[in-house]
């Protein structure tokens, strides 16, 4: 009986937490389908009375959201592809090649993870300004090309690949690059998927750096454009909710589709040794 009671109260508590976690997002979605003004009532309305798509229409036709959507997608995809290649090459080499200074170099990289990226932003902006890359896609891609965390994740995974696999491939006359490309990369698939997800979502959601480096409206990513629009359209609740839905939906759908890899990745990064 006591156990039963404990079970019921546990479910009640967990359900409340789940409602709190999801309610703001559910309300966002619902309000995005309301005509102007309907979300500003008391008590708050949870379902649209006059369902409409006009907020989305306004965003895509008058407010240029198609363009921001393209910018965000293009940047997130580019950074993901480039960094995956560069990080996996380095992570594999750190795991499976012996060379002078390898361990101190790796330790230095790990130690420098404590440096917050904000420290680099002022000089990086000046550098990119001199090179003419401010307000260009390259300006966002460059600092994302390689990541220490990514190298670390891949190295940890590659360490678990038996040396005998690599030796056997070498006996068969495979070149170093061929071993990396057709043996190591397929074996590293799970961690590559995880890292790709992390990178894609991280780039998509990133705010401070694109805010700094994209100075022209036409180059904005979705979060930068949304922050900007939300300061101009404070009263247009329903419109801003539609904008938030467009910004959140792609990453949320991606997460739901492949959440196993994402959660495994956090666990892999979280447990040491």
């Amino acid at each position, binding site marked *: 009986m006591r156990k039963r009671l404990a079970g019921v109260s546990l479910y009640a*508590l*967990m359900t409340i937490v789940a409602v709190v976690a999801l309610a703001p997002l559910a309300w966002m979605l619902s309000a995005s389908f309301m005509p102007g003004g309907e979300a500003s009532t008391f008590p708050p309305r949870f379902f649209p009375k006059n369902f409409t798509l006009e907020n989305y229409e306004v965003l895509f036709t008058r407010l240029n959201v198609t363009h921001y959507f393209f910018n965000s997608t293009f940047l997130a995809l580019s950074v993901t592809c480039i960094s995956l290649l560069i990080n996996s090459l380095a992570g594999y080499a750190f795991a499976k090649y*012996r060379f*002078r200074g390898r361990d101190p170099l790796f330790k230095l990289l790990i130690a420098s993870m404590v440096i917050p990226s904000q*420290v680099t932003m002022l*000089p990086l902006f000046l550098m990119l300004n001199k090179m003419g890359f401010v307000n260009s896609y390259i300006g966002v891609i460059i600092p994302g090309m390689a990541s220490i965390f990514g190298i670390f994740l891949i190295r940890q995974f590659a360490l678990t690949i038996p040396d005998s696999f690599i030796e056997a491939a070498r006996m068969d006359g495979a070149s170093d690059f061929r071993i990396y490309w057709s043996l190591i990369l397929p074996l590293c698939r799970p961690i590559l998927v995880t890292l790709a997800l992390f990178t894609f979502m991280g780039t998509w959601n990133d705010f401070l750096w694109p805010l700094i480096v994209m100075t022209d409206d036409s180059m904005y990513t979705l979060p930068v454009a*949304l922050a900007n629009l939300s300061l101009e359209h404070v009263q247009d609740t329903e419109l801003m909710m539609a904008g*938030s839905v467009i910004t959140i939906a792609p990453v949320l759908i991606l997460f739901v589709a492949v959440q196993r890899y994402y959660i495994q990745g956090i666990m892999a990064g979280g447990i040491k040794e």
Partner: protein
Amino acid sequence: MGNNQGGRVALLFIGPALLAIGIFFFVPVLAAFVLSFTDFDIYSLGNFKFARFVGFHNYVQLLQDPLFWKSLKNTLYFLIVGGPLSIAVSLASALMVQSKLVRWKTFFRTAYFTPVVTTLVAVAVVWRYVYHPRFGLLNYVVTLAGFNPVDWLGDPNWAMPAIIMMAVWKNFGYNMVIFIAGLQNIPDELYEAAAIDGAGKTQQLFSITLPMLAPTTLFVSIITMIGYFQLFAEPYVMTQGGPLNSTLSIVLLMYQQGFRWWNMGYSAAIAFVLFAFILAGSLLQSRVQRRMST
């Protein structure tokens, strides 16, 4: 593979990463350090020659800047209240989700984790309306419970608590997953042995679960601290640092000084103070870890 050729190939493989990280991370870090000792401003932007070395001037000025102290105080408030709060919520949810009494674990875990993957800027926009003094969801709940409505983002005393609540909502699922991994690593035999010895559930929690989770908790504390020190998007979108600078954070001040007023020398000094705090916090926590493991 220890031969010369292997070394050359390894360099080729590591080269692109080292170049990218070296040029676009390490060089800027050093340059920021130099920058923080100059009076680099909007005039120097056109011609770097206009910047002069001013020694510790920026750091001295920082100590005398009431806005800097305000931003430091606000950031520490956010960190010291929000950090432990979000870790406590994460731990409690992990314990609930992993409880033997519960089914549909995956559903609850996914629900709790959903806010983590959302875009911070977008949910900050949403929460601005959740906190609306007249029409917001939160004040609806507050008045249902019989309290007076609160002007969450307009009242200097409530603005930071409001940002903390939103941050806890957004982040607790991340640390929850790390705690779940930690819980799964505790051997079942420990609990079986304790049960045979007659230890109740509460006793098991305090004498097995929490001590075994100590390393996980420490790791979670470090990443949470590093993340929370970098508070920026929430105040930028929700309050612009207001009201009365009650949500002005260190990174927001750095952004305003560096990229709105182009006082880049001064802004670089702020960035290094941020770095110093994060470094000190990490060193402190890893010392605690070393003491615990010996």
